[in-house]
């Protein structure tokens, strides 16, 4: 019994998001008389989660460096715009390549400026966000026609494809993050860059590789957003960075990076957020109340899970 209590005390913080997810699922199932456990509803939540999981699996790499990425809305907007614009010049298949290349370039710019100039990643990522939204918004604003996904890809938005992409991404990125040099060294840099450098880790190289992974995953996520929306506008991606950050934090991802990051926190955070939003909608909660609850949960999650040891200078 003593052993169990000791184990629970040591690991409660790690498993709190999973317990919260179970609590939310059970709570809403009871309150909605099982409506939230309806097969179709579960399928919808799984479908909605795919895009966020794919994006989050990339962002966890930059978060493990201790770098927050506030550029996601701009990256989605700019890469989606460039991708669909490319279809007009180079044909429909150019969409995929252009979206992924644009997302990678955005992430590498953030990583590059952060490393070379030593500017805080939050500031750089905000700048990239404004740049992306600004460029896309300006050009879309001056177009006389909308930008739609080429009709040849109409069949691509399917549950099966989205599930497959999400599952493959989870498997591949879990291995890369937890069992390869890239993941381990990224976390080591996040824990203590000076010690990592002293230990012979090429900090610049692994930081850039982390941003490269984030870029690839953001490119795939943007492609999924574009396929799901069928068209884009200047508001595409609006709020994506905030939602993603909220999901990561309530899933238990550490804002300070380091070895405490876990891939499962992405999946748990996304599902927790979506189950909460879905459950409150099913129960007919006022939309403003949903926003209020999301805000309180965000604050509570940060307070409960924030790793103070990683940032002794804050408190």
């Amino acid at each position, binding site marked *: 019994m003593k052993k169990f209590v000791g184990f629970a005390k040591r690991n409660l913080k790690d498993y709190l998001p999973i317990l919260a997810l179970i609590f939310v699922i059970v709570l809403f199932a009871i309150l909605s008389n099982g409506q939230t456990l309806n097969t179709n509803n579960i399928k919808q939540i799984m479908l909605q989660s795919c895009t966020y999981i794919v994006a989050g699996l990339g962002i966890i790499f930059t978060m493990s460096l201790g770098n927050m990425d506030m550029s996601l809305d701009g990256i989605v907007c700019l890469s989606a715009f460039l991708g669909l614009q490319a279809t007009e010049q180079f044909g429909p298949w150019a969409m995929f390549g252009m979206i992924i290349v644009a997302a990678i370039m955005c992430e590498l710019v953030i990583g590059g400026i952060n490393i070379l100039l030593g500017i805080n990643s939050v500031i750089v990522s905000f700048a990239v966000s404004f740049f992306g939204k600004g460029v896309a918004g300006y050009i*879309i604003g001056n177009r*006389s026609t909308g930008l739609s996904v080429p009709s040849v890809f109409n069949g691509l938005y399917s549950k099966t494809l989205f599930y497959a992409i999400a599952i493959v991404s989870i498997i591949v990125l879990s291995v890369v993050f937890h069992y390869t040099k890239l993941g381990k060294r990224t976390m080591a840099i996040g824990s203590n860059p000076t010690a990592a450098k002293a230990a012979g880790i090429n900090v610049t190289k692994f930081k850039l590789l982390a941003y490269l992974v984030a870029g690839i995953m953001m490119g795939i996520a943007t492609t999924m957003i574009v396929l799901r929306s069928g068209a884009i506008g200047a508001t595409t991606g609006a709020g994506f960075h905030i939602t993603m950050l909220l999901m990561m934090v309530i899933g238990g991802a550490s804002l300070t990076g380091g070895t405490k990051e876990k891939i499962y926190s992405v999946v748990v955070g996304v599902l927790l957020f979506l189950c909460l939003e879905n459950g409150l909608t099913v129960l*007919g909660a*006022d*939309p403003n109340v949903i926003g209020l609850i999301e805000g309180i949960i965000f604050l509570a999650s940060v307070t409960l899970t924030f790793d103070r040891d990683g940032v002794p200078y804050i408190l």
Partner: protein
Amino acid sequence: MKMKKIIRTILAVVMVMCMLAACGGNKASSSGSTASADGPTIGVIIWSTDDGLGADAKTALDTVAADLGVNLIYRTGSFDADSQTTDIENLISAGAEGILICPIVDASNDEYLKTCEDADIPMQLMFRNIVDQDAYDYCMASDQFAGYVSEDEQSAAVAMVDKLLEEGCTTFGLVDRESGNAVIDRRQTGYKEYLDEKNITYYETITTNTATATEMVDATDQLLAANPDIDGIILSSGSNGAIDAIITDLEGKDIKLTSFDTPADIKAGFEGGNLCMLTTGAQIDPVYAMINLYNKMNDAPKADTPTELDSNYIYMTSVEDAQNYEKCFSEFNTYTADEVKELVDMDLDAFKTEMKNYSLEMVSEKMK
């Protein structure tokens, strides 16, 4: 250390209490309607229910929903197509048997409809028509598309230019939004074409569709600073508090303003002296849209094909108009419960005729 533990505990308790409190509400009370719990449910997706037009639209919808015994569930604050698709999916999960939506991305209307088709429920647009040809063709051919209701934006835009000319304005400043929003595009095209036709000088600033009131004021100030000869401003969308903020910003300046949408205090807006015309009253649009959707949900559609309906604007040009408007529209008084039921029973032609009658004078007359 003890204090930190206390704060953490309090936050955890607040979090759980908030969730439980929110979960305690039922569908009828959450929408503010008094509709029957047994009635059909409509999911409403709108930009906001807090700004002038959004709040008026919600008041009107809640009143008519109560008259019809319909439950409403609202989703707000989604400003891209992906989020609106998620809203539709969640509302379907919540038991919505029809979707009433003000779409953000015009070309995504067909994708929204596909989500509804998969769930075998109808969809109706409010405040918007469909400009994108592919989306239009898809929607108009669908059995699940009830139709759209929109306003004659171009005529309204022309009327706003004429009002500024009547006020003696010679150089115009256009505070516009980026393209992609079908309604706002038509407003902007309407007044720009008319200004070109009249050979009137104008300068334009373009803001995003999600610009805050502060950003709109900044854009207006920059436009005026760059072009000090501007003496008349047209605001193509005053939503999310933009109109209120710009009225305040222009106080004391010799510049006239015309705008779409409604400020929180209309009378004070006109008393300030800058505002000379408001194009508003569009809160009736979702009422007609909901009735059309209600007909479709009850297998009694007003037409065999999706309906394309025009709803009137109300024009206000004076403090008296504002007082009259506030008296008429502080609550939803346009139709009584019996009249709402008559609207449901009307055929398409009679319904269209009734929609054409909507005006400030009509509502004032009814209130007597």
